[in-house]
């Protein structure tokens, strides 16, 4: 059976505007080579200031102690951990798009994978800051690593916090390598197009001698495939491990076996939402509508619809299990979550994460850029609240009612959350300006011109025989 015919009928063209190879290279490289837009200066001055505030606040935090936050006993983890999980979750989309969609031959990924990966790396950087600064004595944080020492002291390998360090560290390393490897052919393109010596040298070093030869392409593609293979389990593992930070504990509301898949689904959900938010802005500003088409966005919306429902399922499943367990502490934790002092946060979460994605059942809304932009913002907010609900409400009312408390953030909590966005956007803006935000070499591969067989006369008939 010729499945090509089926897919031909179903698929819209991935890249619009009948681009040539040269046009692709030109459009994307010119963003880097051309004059810096004024808007970029404005944007980076804002995000840069916020990032500076972030570092300033960290300095103050180190100086004063984490008491400047709203933490207390019982709520000994607050926004720092919420932000950490939030950013790690955001960081899921990139690798998922790059690795899993690559392995699944979802070639529509080529338009968005580069900056989704970049976003992953920046999100993981933001995430990584929080566990490091949330500890009481930041200056001895290295004790968490299994470093040889004269006391022969090892970290506690039973602690999920330790697993966390390994999981996030591995994830960051692999994601970074994966991203960098994908960049190499494009960096070489930029090197070749460079008009001054400094650029030539920098891009020359970064492109590690890429010449575009056949053997190089062969090795490159193999390496890319291998890295995709290595990264794929990481997509699932990193947030599963992060979820064990909670599920390994005995705290009602944390101690649930559903957490790993629930967290992974939530991470993909939030990651896609963030990719969407960024993609919608970027394609508009840099005029990349032909590369990141509404078809791309619609596909992502479908994924969000699916993961959003998975998350919704997890929410309801938790309630069912709490009731089914017969454990009064567990039951209380969930009733308290939905109807207790933090009910407002819970219902924000449910509205944003479960109700809002339902609009994507409708094709018209699924393909409306303004609608999806607003929806993704809601989902970003909702996913932050999901972590807030899990971390804070569970802690605030656990076993002994005598210790119950109510966590309120301080200006430093809020400042650090905003500041992390500053850091994220600063890194992202630098990336947009100095590196090719769309994988030129890969996009070229999905142009009709890249398919030399000309079986049909339709430009949509671009699939390689495999």
């Amino acid at each position, binding site marked *: 059976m010729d499945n090509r015919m089926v897919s031909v009928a179903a698929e819209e063209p991935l890249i619009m505007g009948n681009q040539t190879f040269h046009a692709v290279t030109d459009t994307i490289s010119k963003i880097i080579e051309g004059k810096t837009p004024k808007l970029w200066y404005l944007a980076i001055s804002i995000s840069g200031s916020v990032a500076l505030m972030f570092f300033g606040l960290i300095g103050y935090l180190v100086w*004063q*102690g*984490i*008491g*400047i936050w*709203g*933490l*207390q*006993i*019982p*709520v*000994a*983890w607050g926004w720092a951990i919420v932000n950490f999980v939030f950013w790690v979750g955001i960081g899921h989309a990139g690798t998922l798009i790059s690795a899993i969609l690559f392995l699944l031959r979802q070639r529509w990924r080529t338009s968005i994978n580069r900056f989704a990966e970049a976003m992953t790396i920046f999100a993981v950087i933001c995430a990584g800051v929080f566990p490091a600064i*949330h*500890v*009481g*004595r930041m200056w*001895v*944080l290295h*004790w*968490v690593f299994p470093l040889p020492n004269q006391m022969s*002291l*090892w*970290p*506690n390998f*039973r*602690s*999920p*916090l*330790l697993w966390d*360090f390994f999981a996030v560290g591995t994830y960051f390393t692999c994601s970074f390598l994966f991203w960098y490897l994908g960049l190499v052919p494009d960096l070489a393109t930029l090197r070749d197009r460079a008009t001054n010596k400094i650029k030539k040298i920098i891009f020359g070093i970064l492109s590690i001698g890429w010449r575009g030869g056949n053997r190089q392409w062969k090795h490159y593609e193999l390496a890319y495939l291998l890295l995709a293979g290595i990264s794929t389990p990481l997509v699932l593992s990193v947030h599963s491990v992060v979820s064990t*930070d909670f599920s*390994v*504990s*005995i*705290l009602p509301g944390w101690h649930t076996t559903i957490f790993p898949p629930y967290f992974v689904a939530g991470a993909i959900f939030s990651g896609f939402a963030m990719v969407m938010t960024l993609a919608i802005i970027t394609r508009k500003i840099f005029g990349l509508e032909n590369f990141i088409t509404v078809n791309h966005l619609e596909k992502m919306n479908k994924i969000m619809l699916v993961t959003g429902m998975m998350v919704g399922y997890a929410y309801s499943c938790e309630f069912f299990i709490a009731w089914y367990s*017969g*454990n*009064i*502490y567990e*039951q209380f934790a969930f009733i308290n979550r939905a109807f*207790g*002092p933090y*009910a*407002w946060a819970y219902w924000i979460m449910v509205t944003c994460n479960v109700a809002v994605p339902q609009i994507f059942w409708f094709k018209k809304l699924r393909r409306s850029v303004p609608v999806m932009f607003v929806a993704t913002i809601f989902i970003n907010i909702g996913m932050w609240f999901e972590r807030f609900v899990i971390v804070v409400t569970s*802690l605030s*009312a*656990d*076993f*002994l*009612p*005598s*210790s*119950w*408390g*109510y966590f*309120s*953030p*301080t*200006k430093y909590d809020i400042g650090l959350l905003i500041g992390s966005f500053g850091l994220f956007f600063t890194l992202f803006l630098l990336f947009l300006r100095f590196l090719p935000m769309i994988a030129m070499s890969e996009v070229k591969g999905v142009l009709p011109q890249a398919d030399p067989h000309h079986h049909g006369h339709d430009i949509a008939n671009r699939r390689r025989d495999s």
Partner: protein
Amino acid sequence: MSKNINLNGKEYWRSLDQLADTPQFREFLQREFPQGASEFDNGMKRRDFIALLSASMALASLAGCRRPVEKIIPYVIAPEEIVPGVSLHYATTMPLGNSAYGLIVESHEGRPTKIEGNPAHPSTKGRSNAHIQASVLGLYDPGRSGDVLFKREKSDWSRFLSSWEADYGDYITSKGEGLAVLSESFSSPSLARLAELFRKKFPRAKWVTYEPVSDENIYEGTRIASGKGCQHIYNLDKCRVILSLESDFLQNESENIANSAGFADGRRVESEKDEMNRLYIVESGYSLTGGMADHRLRTQSGQIGGFAAALMLELESQGLRIDIADSPDRFKSLDFNAIPGYDKEWVAALARDLMANKGRSLVLAGRSQSPAVHAIVYAINHALGNIGRTAVYRPIKDSAISSRDNLIDLVGLMNMGRLSTLFILGGNPVYDAPADLGFETAIKKVEHTIHLSGFADETSKRVEWHIPRSHYLESWGDAVSVDGVRSVIQPMIQPLYGGRGSLDLLHLIVNGNEVSAHDIVRETWQGILKGDFEKSWERVLHDGIYDQKSSSVSDPGLDRRGLASYINRHLVIPESSVDNLEIIFRPSPNLFDGRFANNGWLQELPDSMTKLSWDNAALISMKMARKFDLANGDMVELDYDGRKLELPIWIMPGQADNSITLTLGYGRIAAGQVGDNVGFNAYKLRTSKAPYFGSGLLIRKTGAVYKLATTQDHSSMEGRPLVREASLEHYREEPNFAPEMVESPPLKSLWAEHKYDEGNQWGMTIDLNVCTGCNACTIACQSENNIPIVGKEQVSHGREMHWIRLDRYFEGDIDDPSVVHQPVGCQHCEMAPCEQVCPVAATVHDKEGLNTMVYNRCVGTRYCSNNCPYKVRRFNFFNFTKDTPEVTKMAQNPDVTVRSRGVMEKCTYCVQRISEARIKSKAENREIADGDIVTACQQSCPTGAIVFGNVNDSGSTVSKMKNQNRNYGLLAEFNTRPRTSFLAKIRNPNPELISSDEGNKIENLEREKKQS
């Protein structure tokens, strides 16, 4: 809900506000971020504090390792020299009003660091209370005064000396015309000897004794009833039935340690076969004693006299011959049914219970009650044959008793300009004298005023001379306990601030020259001790007591006629109506009358019942709050007798309706850096006519809201089996009710469990049946383990550092709930959830079963706290000890690490004491014996509720406790295997009253539900 929890039919209600479902609470639910926490240094302004303290630091460094020059004798062990690192123990005595508490003080290299009760002394019996525990911090208070002040300017002692010497001769000639002394009350042979000399030398001079909170009414009542001035001593251990008429004898009355110990002895059960005492209480506010009661009747303080009369008549109608009841015509005019909460059945059942326990019962009234009530109570006890058995009396000797009337006379003389010199020996009358006397203005009319005080306080600021007073731990003196046991106050350290004691000053007043207090005391004791003086003197210093047996008279008799006529004239029962609000003044359980206001430990210590820290509030019932539309923290203006005070309110379940309780001791303006402007000064409304309660109070909501810091936001157990409780009847039917309250699946671990079956395995039991919730353990732990205070701001953010806290839960009807207390420290779980999650293994188990905390290794992830189901771990959110004044550092225990910022801490089972005992036993080549190790909380507990020891030794006390059928582990169903276990609480309600009580409560509950 669930099937596996058997609550034995107890109804536990949800949080107070939730039950009430007030708009404020709904608002609280909805508000997002109510109030941002702010930085640490906002709270106490520690940096300013430090700046002001530089002078005292210099002082402290001079004081470094001072030791007394005069000879004091170490307790028990007397080494040749001090061995560095080895603590010495000395006996001394802490005087407080007419009480004397015999103490053993632990001293490290010449500085006292920890105070315990003296086991040989009848007032402490080796136990203590929060005031005693915290007094060591008072010694090292940087706010203490160090300078003689003349008209508020720095002066010196010699100038004062010459000024007095110039006047002395004149007063001798005039026989003391125009001279007066206003002293605190005391019971001291030396002070009494000098006071006697004073009267001889200055017969025309005036001597007045005044205490804002004293047993004056009790003495007066006893005097009226018996015709003799007698000191009362209660033997609560011998009581089967106790009725308290607003006497908070377990916490807020004199001799609360001996009372608590005696009460606990009569209440303790080892098995379901044991008997226990029964406590009835009638009171307005909810006291600690009320919390322990088996039956509690809420009524206004002013109505308690009527209740006493009703009881008297009821007892008589049941055939008790009281002899006087027929004569007080006053009784006939009383309408007992008008007493709120009055229940004839209740009184009849109580009377039957008392009748059935003649000679084994006791009726006591609180010091707030009028002498008439005390006289009635005395008569009842007399008729019941309790006098001489459960209440014994001894003649008052060597004591100065407070008298309000004398103070009124004195102020009258001052206003008339009849006084030329007034010595104020201790006390702070400008702050705490009755507001209607106008002491503050009267004092200006006296030419020379001299105030001896530990602090340059409110009074010091208005006198001519302020003389710094030495702390009891740094001065010589002596004291008589209420039992008549005499002891010496021996100093532990040279005066840090160069102050003088009452003895020094009184001797100067009397004799016009200076003699050291040491010599004064020795002179007195020359007349007391028999035989070889030096030998006996050393014995007294060593033992801490002189008389072994208390000198008591069994029965002072009953003055029937005097009693009846007094009652007829003086028993005043105000009309009780909804519009006639009652104001009640109670001393603070923490700050007492305000004298401990600059003590940070006591300020931060949450009130046992309200759980408020660093503040006082007007306590009102839920019903009143609804009526006046008030929520916790709402500011109200109280108008009593034309005097006004604004303060926040706090809803106290169990408070009598239409009664508002104010706590004295707060709102100081010259207490020192810690105590200034903390809370609200209730003395502003307190007059000589209504020293403890009065009616006719007006209340008005101002609309302002005040932030109160509480350490416990939620007061319901949410139906969880945390404090397990049953009636004695139920306990007898189901002796294993406590462990059987929770069923759990087989508790199995994922990995091979450690056996913990070798050597010493430490464990603890806490008997909830005798724990009163008095807070002594919290302060003892704070003192022993160098626990920092954090200030109101931090407490309101839930960052208090106490290693052992008292959880207080209400149950039942919101207007009239019962209350339970549960001390919770680290449970030292064998399968500790905290240990598993620490990434750096900073909290680990040792082979003796201790859950240890390695501060040096802690990086501060706080995961251990999150995973601790008991939430007993405390985190150093800031460097809480950074700004500890140098002088206060001297109070720290050198055996315990001072924790820095960013590390977790928690109860260690006093591991330093375990180590000390281990070293000692090794040196003596023996095993650690049961009782060698006493944890700080255990040592201070006045009721002996806490037992610690080796659970691996079946003969140890702790093992025996754990073998009792009431033993259960808190949250043990999570397989945490806590080493601390609790023994369930048993109440002993009168079977006659159970049905009606329960019926009323259920009825009330239903009514409440309908209303809300």
